């Protein structure tokens, strides 16, 4: 088994011990980045999340130089059991105060449980399942960047409203795919559309042509892709080959990252509608941040997961700074919910009592190749979904924290 990739020193670790001790009121905090450092999702999160966390630490040091931040990283290899073991070791033996990211839903649910048991904090960015702030919520977990409900609501509703009222799903046959399909079907039906059928295929299916034929013969206007990563890329690539879009049907990618668009190429991905909560080319602040990110990750385009890690670590450090303690995870989470969020990437916002971070979501359309002016110029903005509409209403989640 691969061991933890190794401790990664943060910006402030460079400070000499003596100098640190000499300063009165110096406080230490240790953050563990738990991410897919070597697998399928390493471009979506991966090494970039460590860079993002370091940038947040560097920025917070400008506000409060007395807080000493150390960042370590662990690779759960996308497995829940390994994730739980890493988190337990961090929280029990290595003095880690908070874990951030969590590359997939299974990993995130496992770490969330450990954080609650050990009374530490877990701030999720990479994982999608809306259960983290719904039926499986707890007082030690905060879900920052996006979730399945928000994806379904953003893309699903927009597509139905623009005439895409009959759907056929290509679903990844595991918990995440089912959740995304369930949430999207609900949105489609609530908005007057109907679901004509679905095909559920195993994770890492390399050939979608048979499912695409099925979808083609269903005559549905929209083929919804309730899958992620390599599955989504293969499905879109082959849909182009089978002339799905030319035949009058449209694709709706329910979870598409900018890295996936890069892998597809605009020629294939053009016209695809998708929802994200952050895009590197959204505004001046996001472009400036991307420039800093690319100093450490040359040529790589940051995703909303990286942005989420940056913003959530920054907010976490603010809460710890005000509280002057990081040991009680529940107290820090409460502080994070109490103070409003404000960062250059997601703007002003707040964290709800169920742990859901609230910010606007954006409906994008992938540009045609001739519209793209420079590398990474992928999206045009079709609509902005305001923060209060982008995420599941507090009362609908079934989170136990809401009632109490």
């Amino acid at each position, binding site marked *: 088994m691969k061991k933890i990739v190794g401790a990664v020193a943060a910006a402030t670790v460079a400070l000499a011990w003596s100098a640190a001790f000499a300063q009165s009121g110096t406080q230490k905090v240790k953050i563990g980045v738990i991410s897919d450092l070597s697998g399928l999702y390493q471009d979506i999160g991966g090494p970039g999340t460590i860079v993002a966390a370091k940038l947040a630490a560097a920025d917070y040091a400008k506000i409060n130089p007395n807080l000493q931040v150390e960042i370590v990283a662990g690779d759960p290899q996308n497995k829940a059991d390994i994730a739980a073991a890493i988190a337990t070791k961090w929280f029990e033996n290595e003095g880690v105060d908070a874990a951030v990211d969590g590359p997939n839903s299974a990993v995130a649910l496992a770490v969330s449980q450990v954080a609650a048991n050990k009374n530490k904090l877990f701030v999720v960015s990479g994982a999608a399942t809306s259960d983290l702030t719904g039926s499986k919520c707890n007082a030690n977990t905060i879900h920052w960047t996006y979730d399945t409900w928000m994806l379904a609501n953003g893309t699903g509703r927009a597509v139905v409203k623009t005439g895409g009222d009959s759907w056929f799903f290509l679903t990844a046959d595991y918990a995440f795919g089912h959740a995304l399909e369930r949430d999207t079907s609900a949105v489609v039906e609530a908005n007057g559309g109907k679901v004509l059928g679905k095909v*559920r295929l195993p994770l890492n299916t390399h050939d979608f042509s048979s499912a695409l034929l099925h979808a083609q013969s269903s005559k549905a206007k929209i083929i919804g892709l309730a899958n992620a990563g390599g599955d989504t*890329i293969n499905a879109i690539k082959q849909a182009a080959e089978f002339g799905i879009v030319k035949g009058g049907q449209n694709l709706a990618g329910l979870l598409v990252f900018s890295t996936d668009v890069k*892998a597809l190429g605009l020629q294939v991905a053009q016209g695809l509608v998708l929802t994200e909560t952050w895009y590197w080319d959204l505004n001046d602040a996001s472009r400036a941040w991307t420039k800093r990110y690319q100093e450490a990750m040359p040529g790589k385009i940051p995703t909303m997961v990286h942005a989420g890690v940056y913003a959530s670590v920054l907010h976490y450090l603010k809460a710890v700074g005000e509280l002057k303690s990081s040991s009680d995870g529940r107290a820090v989470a409460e502080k994070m919910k109490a103070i409003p969020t404000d960062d250059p990437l997601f703007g002003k916002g707040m964290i709800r009592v169920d742990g859901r971070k609230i910010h606007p979501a954006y409906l994008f359309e992938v540009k045609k190749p001739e519209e793209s002016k420079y590398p990474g110029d992928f999206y045009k903005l079709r609509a902005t979904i305001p923060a209060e509409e982008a995420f599941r209403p507090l009362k609908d989640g079934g989170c136990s924290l809401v009632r109490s």
Partner: protein
Amino acid sequence: MFEIFGIPSQALFGQLLIGLINGSFYALLSLGLAVIFGMLNIINFAHGAQYMLGAFAAYLLLQLTGIGYWPALILAPIIVGIIGIVIERTMLQWLYKLDHLYGLLLTFGLALVIEGVFRNYYGSSGQPYQVPSSLAGGHNLGFMFLPNYRAWVIVASLIVCFGTWFVIEKTRLGSYLRAATENPTLVRAFGINVPRMITLTYGFGVALAAFAGVMAAPIYNVSPQMGSDIIIVVFAVVVIGGMGSIMGAILTGFSLGIAEGLTKVFFPEASSTVIFVIMAIVLLTRPAGLFGRG
């Protein structure tokens, strides 16, 4: 239009054809494995990585030198084949006298190293590669829309598969090769350079994998893990066909593609397991595989 088991015949014909297309990839890849195992007695676990190298070679040729799909179809297998020859000369040739396990471990390790290096440089999300413009579009066959590129995949794979079978089973060169695996000392006594022949055979098997990789690049995601996704199925195909049997690998490749295609009609959730169920049944009834000798 009539129905078979409640499935419209249209859909069924479509799925059969698609199964045949996927079978083309299985056949191409398992053919390379069968050639290498038959001639070298090496279980080439690096085959998936070499398939990935073929796809990446096509991508890099396009990115760095502007060489398109058609030249890449020739050049990429040659480049990757040469890499294979280097691997054989520097590493594999020391293992022929040892247990199969050593070759398996070495090639498995190589596959991990190659994949890891590519993941480090190119990330995991993949690279774009377009269908060549001369094969873009498709034809409506009445029961399904057949992209021209897929039709080309079937044709090319049939030509390459049966060409290889013909050379090995029906020509003088092939008879030398087969003789050399049976009794290398005797063949050498006739003045034939057996080690060189073995080296070239490995290079050829690897080139076949790279050829399949280039064929796959326009329709599958070109990513470092593309080989490990498909190679397990291909190994099952080789086991079902009978290790080392050339014709067995080709026929099982195509027929398992069809079996998988049919599963996707009736019960798509099981499409990734059906091949292994067949493998279990075959191993229980015919342990040497359907076409295996021994």
